[in-house]
């Protein structure tokens, strides 16, 4: 099976740690991943902001870049959902088979215990496009439950949007901030040290607010928790 990593433009530029964790995790599980250097962005920002033509160009580019791979793994629910759910609306043909990380691990590799160790109290935010777009269900939770040392605490109102929404966060800053405040209120109720999600764009918004509020709660991408081991935890 030829597997490619679609890092996504946000992770590539701002969160290389998530990409390194995904590569490390997949290699640990015996999967050799390729990283086609021609990749850039799936076009989600352009499409969702109203720039369809630009989005179509980027979608075409994506399709060409990842042609020939049996599976494309993306550590981002919304970018994976963009390819799988939105490309058909853009009349893109021969769409590569894209999986969110948790889908690839559970559905393709058939593992829920990835041999990780992370001795912390964690709560998980499912993110809208993973939950309602890709419908990943409890796959991330099953992966987290099998991490040694990890205490998973349920997040109240988990299925509610955090208020990121791409350019929504800037165009509708007040509503976005209000949604974020409520989400963070729920995170604080859990007493978790770490807020985990499978999408760094939501975590950029949530983490930026948590940091501004000096809350002491840190955010981590699912890949980074699953990549942690006794050795890496030191």
């Amino acid at each position, binding site marked *: 099976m030829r597997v490619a990593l679609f890092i996504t*433009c946000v992770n590539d530029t701002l*969160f290389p740690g998530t990409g390194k964790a995904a590569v490390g995790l997949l290699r640990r599980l015996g999967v050799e991943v390729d990283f086609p250097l021609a990749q850039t962005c799936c076009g989600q920002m352009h499409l969702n902001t109203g720039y369809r033509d630009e989005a179509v160009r980027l979608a075409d580019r994506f399709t060409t870049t990842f042609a020939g791979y049996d599976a494309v793994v993306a550590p981002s629910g919304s970018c994976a959902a963009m390819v799988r759910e939105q490309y058909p609306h853009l009349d893109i043909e021969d769409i590569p088979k894209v999986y969110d990380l948790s889908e690839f691990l559970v559905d393709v590799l058939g593992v829920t215990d990835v041999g990780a160790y992370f001795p912390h109290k964690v709560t998980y935010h499912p993110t809208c496009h993973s939950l309602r777009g890709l419908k990943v269900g409890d796959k991330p939770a099953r992966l987290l439950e099998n991490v040694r040392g990890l205490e998973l605490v349920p997040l109240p109102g988990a299925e509610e949007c955090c208020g990121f929404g791409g350019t929504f966060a800037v165009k509708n800053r007040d*509503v976005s901030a209000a949604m974020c405040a409520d989400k963070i209120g729920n995170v604080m109720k859990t007493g978790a040290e770490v807020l985990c999600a499978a999408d760094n764009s939501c975590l950029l918004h949530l983490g930026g607010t948590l940091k501004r509020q000096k809350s002491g709660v840190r955010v981590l991408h699912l890949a980074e928790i699953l990549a942690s081991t006794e050795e890496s935890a030191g």
Partner: protein
Amino acid sequence: MSGVFVGMPAFPKNAAKAVQNSQLRFNLRKATHTIRGKRAAVVGELDDWAELRQAGKTIKDHTLRNLDRYLVQLEEKVTEAGGTVHWARDAAEANRIVTRLVKDTGETEVVKVKSMATQEIGLNEALAEEGIEAFETDLAELIVQLGDDFPSHILVPAIHRNRAEIRELFLKKMAGAPKDLTDEPRVLAEAARVYLRKRFLESKVAISGANFMIAETGTLVVLESEGNGRMCLTLPKTLISVVGIEKLLPTWQDLEVFLQLLPRSSTGERMNPYTSMWTGATEGQEFHLVLLDNGRTSVLADKVGRQALRCIRCSACLNVCPVYERAGGHAYGSVYPGPIGAILTPQLRGMDTELDRSLPYASSLCGACYEVCPVAIDIPSVLVDLRAKARHSRAEKAGMAAAGWVFNRSKRLAKAQRFGGRMRRLVPKRLPGPLSGWTDTRDLPEIPAESFRDWWIREGKR
């Protein structure tokens, strides 16, 4: 559409005010979460909900595709049954027709059943200009009317008011309200009941909308909770119904699907308390049906947007929407607020004003609305399609073009990343212009010294 909201600022500005109103936030949160829970419980009871939803969608799509045929069939059947059918191209024409019909009766007062179509065309205001007073008889619509207020929800238009405010309003504005009125819901409802009963018995003309119209028999259907609708539909001598042309169903059998979908999605009940159905005119009474287009045929012509015409006005999408919950209904500047309003209003009114252009952006595209919609309207997709049709600011266009240029070559992206990595210490804590929307409440992430792709080239690849 009606002119009552003309001149309102864009959605973000309206919403910014609303999110500061803690009483409003509390009222909306409590109300939407209660209905949300009730809906989830009664929808969860049905094993065949997914099939019902698919059936609802299919029936509506079929009807819309054959609207010309079914509308003519409906007109024939209503006429055969003693009713008179009028066709209204837009709000002004519909208002003219209704005003003339009321004037022909010689009456100067009418009672009204809760109706979105008459709100949409601003009928009450049009009647008032001609010296005709319209009395809303739905409890929530009455509260809105007495308060000289705008509706803020499709199903529960006074959702933004709490009972203390309603008590105040009744004491001040409702003739004959008892002096010892408390804010207990039962007491408030009783006071309204006494006030309305007199209207029902005295009024000679009633105006309604309809939830459904059945083409094969010419029957109109109204679903309601309070029984005020039944009073209006049966007591007065003249009944005038204003109904959007998309409210058609081909046959009685189709109703079976919608009488399950609507109450469960709307009030979270297995069945609503009152369902009234009538075919043409009852003996000794007069019935007029005003079929309203008001932009609907142009919506029908749009390949993506036309699915909005499947809407049965249940408001399930409002009750799950995190944006509606915080911004409130008034921010949408339309009688159709929430996610469905964000796709319906710009299509019916066009996107000529700043407000109407901002509506497709009044969503984080979280998809909760699509999930609960009983006729499977893919609201996020329609929003995105409308965004592509909206006019964009010059600054935004330039920014998006620049981003597109960078993303179109991976070498350009790599260069931009390396530049960012070198400049990372110089990024200010607060960004200027529209980007301040980000840094007002959030810290920026630290820009890494090395992008993932550079790490891959250096040591990731093996």
